[in-house]
């Protein structure tokens, strides 16, 4: 009986543990070789992200925003400069900075529950019962409790991204890095997820860096929106969006912010970027 109580409380503890983190991106440069010579994807980019801040990176395709996200994640190394998470240099990937990719990178050999459990199993100091409890909590959070044992291919695109979100949240990362996670979804599903992600962000006080080419999406989600310019990739301009939350993507105030950013986007000649849909 006593053991059961202790188990229960350690899972609860894990679920209530809030550890915010701040990011410092210092003078990060990165170039790639391409057929037409070297391309400077990032040119001395410096960005600070405060604890529990929601920052959106906006820009046309190929402006280096995804590269920056990968560098923050530790999946790629910068040519020069560095990223610090809580003051410590990032040298490789780590579960305190989880990534949600554009395509759902769910594992087809595991069912929904197994996918959410994957990252948790790599987290030490938890009993298996705790892990299962935490996984169930996040599946419920994204509204997929009934699909615990579904196979990945049986899910719709929106459900897959929800599972990806649950999988990214489950190990309780301090930083969530999101790379156009909703780009492939229909408008209705996306709007639902905007609500979900704002709720989760607020409740769990995550630090989120969110890459998108959708200006309206950025204005809806971000405390700050950083506009990237391509060739070379730089932070062109910074916008503070101080609208109350939760924000509705269709609100007039939000449209005002979005059009301000869109104007700036056009002025740097990024015609290719998708203007608010």
């Amino acid at each position, binding site marked *: 009986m006593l053991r059961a109580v202790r188990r229960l409380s350690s899972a609860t503890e894990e679920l209530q543990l809030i550890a915010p983190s701040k990011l410092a991106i210092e003078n990060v440069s990165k170039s790639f070789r391409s057929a037409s010579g070297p391309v400077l994807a990032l040119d001395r980019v410096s960005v600070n992200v405060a604890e529990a801040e929601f920052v959106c990176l906006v820009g046309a395709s190929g402006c280096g925003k995804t590269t920056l996200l990968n560098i923050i*994640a530790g*999946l790629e190394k910068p040519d020069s400069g560095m990223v610090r998470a809580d003051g410590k240099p990032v040298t490789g990937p780590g579960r305190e900075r989880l990534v949600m990719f554009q395509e759902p990178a769910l*594992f*087809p050999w595991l069912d929904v529950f197994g996918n959410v459990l994957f990252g948790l199993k790599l987290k030490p100091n938890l009993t298996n019962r705790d892990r299962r409890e935490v996984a169930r909590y996040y599946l419920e959070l994204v509204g997929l409790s009934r699909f615990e044992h579904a*196979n990945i291919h049986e899910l719709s695109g929106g459900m897959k991204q929800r599972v990806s979100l649950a999988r990214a949240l489950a190990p309780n990362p301090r930083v969530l890095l999101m790379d156009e996670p909703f780009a492939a979804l229909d408008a209705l599903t996306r709007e639902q997820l905007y609500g979900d992600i704002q709720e989760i962000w607020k409740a769990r006080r995550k630090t989120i860096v969110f890459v998108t080419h959708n200006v309206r999406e950025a204005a809806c989600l971000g405390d700050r929106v950083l506009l990237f310019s391509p060739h070379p990739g730089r932070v062109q301009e910074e916008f503070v969006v101080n609208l109350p939350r939760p924000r509705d993507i269709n609100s007039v105030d939000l449209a005002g912010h979005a059009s301000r950013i869109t104007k700036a986007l056009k002025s740097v000649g990024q015609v290719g970027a998708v203007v608010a849909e």
Partner: protein
Amino acid sequence: MKRFFLSTAFFAVLVLLWEGVYRAKIWSPVLLPSPGQVVRYLESAAADGTLLKATVITMRRLVIGYLIGLLMGLPLGLLTARWKLFHDTIGTLALGLQTLPSVCWVPLALLWFGQTEAAMLFVVVMGTLWSVIIATETGVRNVPPIYRRAALTMGSKRLHMWFKVILPAALPFIVSGMKQGWAFAWRSLMAAEIFVTILTGFGLGQLLHYGRELSAMEQVIGIMIVIVVIGLLADKIFFSPIERFLHRRWGTSQA
């Protein structure tokens, strides 16, 4: 149920046709025995234990050789997928030797090992190994990089990455390689047993061979049927469930 019935009816018709041809006396009964004669042979061979003994001996050679082939092939396939050096050496060797019909190993095995169990095992291992190496390598190379990246961010690395991400992701390829390896091993073992008399054990192939020597056609056909049934059972009992699981999980088929 309906499928089972149709399947049974099909084979019943086949046996009836056979019986009809036998009764028409188109060929000498020495060349074409009746279904009844074949069944009687199988009954007597089952009763005096020769059939069971031969089956056990053959299956033992097959299973042991196959397992050795798998245990060698899987790690070698992983090595060839992981390091260029292994890819350029063992990978190329496997690709070349896979094109060699595994029966071609029999003469070499005989000269090297003589008429021993080792020669049988060698032939089975050679039948299995190259297919498994190539399938494992192909499977690992076809794992979408995004799985690795996702797993990396969740803290998976080295052995965990290999066992929990790359191997499962490559499973569909590996299983089809295992199936091919099994088929090659089974064929080459039969060839080897027909070729070679081995004093340490009398397998199904050898029974088949002596059926020919004695012009006992009911024995030849009877053993052939046993060999077919074993092949079918291996597929239905071992490979089909795995493939069904893979199809269900990956969503690659409606079956």
